[in-house]
């Protein structure tokens, strides 16, 4: 390609016909490839729903809507109900978010706004390292370190001070909903932190400079930056929520695996992902297998609904902040 042609292209006036068709052909191929990639996602989702619905048809026919509200899970007698598992999945994930969100945002703000560069980099690296630890290691750590810690120090303290609340009743043995929520919180903190950090870094420096120039304190400046990053932070939380709902191995090792709905965080619970992991390998009998696959379908739907709700929440929050400014 000559310099002359380049110049012509830049001005856009005198493009040769041959070159133009080439470009259009390339664009077309590019477009087709991208469309294929996008359709592939749709096809995979559709195929998953189709196969899971088909494999769980026996159970859907047998129990109908009662599967969602049933509280019994007894493979020996052939009774299957999903409610305690749905409850356990949602409560453990929400608990994890309640703990992880303030910590993650705090860490991210520290890394971006406060920490000296020398400290910020290794710390960011450490946070990302946390995300790479396999979940079975988290689970083992939870059994051998977290559970005894909770049992000996945290839970007796909660029982003495806040024991009148229904959340802190029962035997404190370290294993249960509380430790499940905490281990999930630890696992999703790195993800939320990493995303929030990127979002905060994307807020223009001029914003901070303007605030500081107007005499704002560090705290006030941070508030302005956070308000700007609102929807991004909410997105990070949704990402964390998704991971918390789907997490299997670590929480199976620590939640106590008991299909029971109890308000107390000391009591054991059970999640959908855990029951599938626990029972799928030894599931004999068609109805049993079918019920477990229906659990997978429900987990899929729960994730779908929760993500949808979270997205709506983000939209409304973003709109509110836009109005208040």
């Amino acid at each position, binding site marked *: 390609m000559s310099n002359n042609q380049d110049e012509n292209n830049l001005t856009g006036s005198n493009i040769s016909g041959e070159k133009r068709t080439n470009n259009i052909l390339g664009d077309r191929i590019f477009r087709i490839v991208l469309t294929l990639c996008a359709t592939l996602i749709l096809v995979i989702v559709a195929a998953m729903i189709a196969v899971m619905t088909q494999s769980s048809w026996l159970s859907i026919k047998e129990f109908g809507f009662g599967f969602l509200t049933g509280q019994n899970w*007894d*493979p*020996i007698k052939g009774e299957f109900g999903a409610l305690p598992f749905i409850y356990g999945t949602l409560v453990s994930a929400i608990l994890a978010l309640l703990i992880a969100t303030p910590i993650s945002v705090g860490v991210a703000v520290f890394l971006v706004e406060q920490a000296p560069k020398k400290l910020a980099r290794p710390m960011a690296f450490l946070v990302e390292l946390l995300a790479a630890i396999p979940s079975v290691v988290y689970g083992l750590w939870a*059994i051998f370190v977290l559970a005894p810690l909770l049992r000996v120090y945290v839970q007796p303290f909660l029982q003495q001070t806040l024991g009148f609340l229904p959340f802190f009743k029962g*035997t404190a*043995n370290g294993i249960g909903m509380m430790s499940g929520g905490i281990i999930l919180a630890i696992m999703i903190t790195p993800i939320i932190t990493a995303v929030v950090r990127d979002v905060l870094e994307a807020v223009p420096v001029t914003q901070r400079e303007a605030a500081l120039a107007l005499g704002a304190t560090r705290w006030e400046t941070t508030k302005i930056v956070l308000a700007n990053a609102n929807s991004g932070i909410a997105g990070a939380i949704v990402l964390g929520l998704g991971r918390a709902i789907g997490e299997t191995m670590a929480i199976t090792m620590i939640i106590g695996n008991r299909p029971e709905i109890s308000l107390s965080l000391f009591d054991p619970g059970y999640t959908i992902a855990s029951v599938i992991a626990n029972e799928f390998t*030894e*599931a*004999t009998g068609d109805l049993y297998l079918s019920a477990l696959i229906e659990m997978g379908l429900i987990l899929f739907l729960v994730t779908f609904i929760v993500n949808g709700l979270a997205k709506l929440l983000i939209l409304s929050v973003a709109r509110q902040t836009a109005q208040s400014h």
Partner: protein
Amino acid sequence: MRSFIPNKIPAIVFIVLSLANLACFSGRQGRGDTVKIQGAGSSFINPLMQKWVSEYGNINPNIRIDYQSIGSGGGVKQTRDRTIQFGATDVAIKDEDMKSADGEIVHIPVILGAVVLTYNLAGVEKPLRFSPDVIADIFLGKINRWDDARIQAENPEANLPSADLTVVHRSDGSGTSAVFTSYLSKVSPEWKEKVGEGTSPSFPVGLGGKGNEGVTGQIKQTPNTIGYVELAYAVKNKLPVAEIKNRAGQYIVPNFETVTNAAKESLADTPEDLRVSITDAAGANAYPIASYVYVVIYKELPDEKNGKAIVDFLLWGINDGQSFAQPLYYSPLPQEMVKRATAKINSITHGGKILRAEATNVQ
């Protein structure tokens, strides 16, 4: 340059070895006498099965056995579907599942295992003793304190704490749970009616731990817990093992002798197809929570050479292979059962003809 040699040596060795391997392998394939056998199932027998596979491989380098520890249920299912050649299971296949298979499946007992009660109690030195009704009531949630009069009555010397008792059970489907609930169903009508027996029982109380290691971990970490695990896990983790009152009224420690005794005492009741539950066995010196591990296999095998190899391997396992059991905390088959299992293996056919190779020397 100094770093050149150490860096490259492993790579060179690797290449040479893999070439040699390739040459060997293709040579064998050329001669066509390498036989591959695929088995899967019980995770309980996995340590012993891997030992057998490697020891047997040393004697017969042209037979390659691959055993996947996927759980008893999966082993049975894959055997029935003929995706593997043999399965291993801690519980005998049920009648209705035997009927729905597309051929006769034989059960071959290959080893014995025990499920033990273990606990975490500070200040209790001697092994605790339990009678069947107390065990059932503990797991039903009716006894929920360690200083319960019925526990104390059986252990007058033990300094039992005044504390809540926490039950730990398996949360994943497992043969261990099946053996334990089979025992409880035999000794407690209430258990049989409320819970029943199976690989994933719905326990009325307690915490669920994933796998033997999960249950062991939770018991080790939590004071005042009680749970059931396979003998090997309790011994290796230095957890106390309870003595259990058997049908003859004796308190029995689980060990190779008492477990094999449970099988011996049950021989008279063992049916021709060898499917038998040996929990709650009679006999003064029989440990009551024990079970055979079975290899399950179609009686008529589709491939002659492959079938011969499996038959030889199984015969070796129930004879020479028994000596590897004790170091891994399994209990050997009683001599009489070795005879009956041998007869079962000898009945395996291909095209209606008995497969047992002439070369094997079975005493």
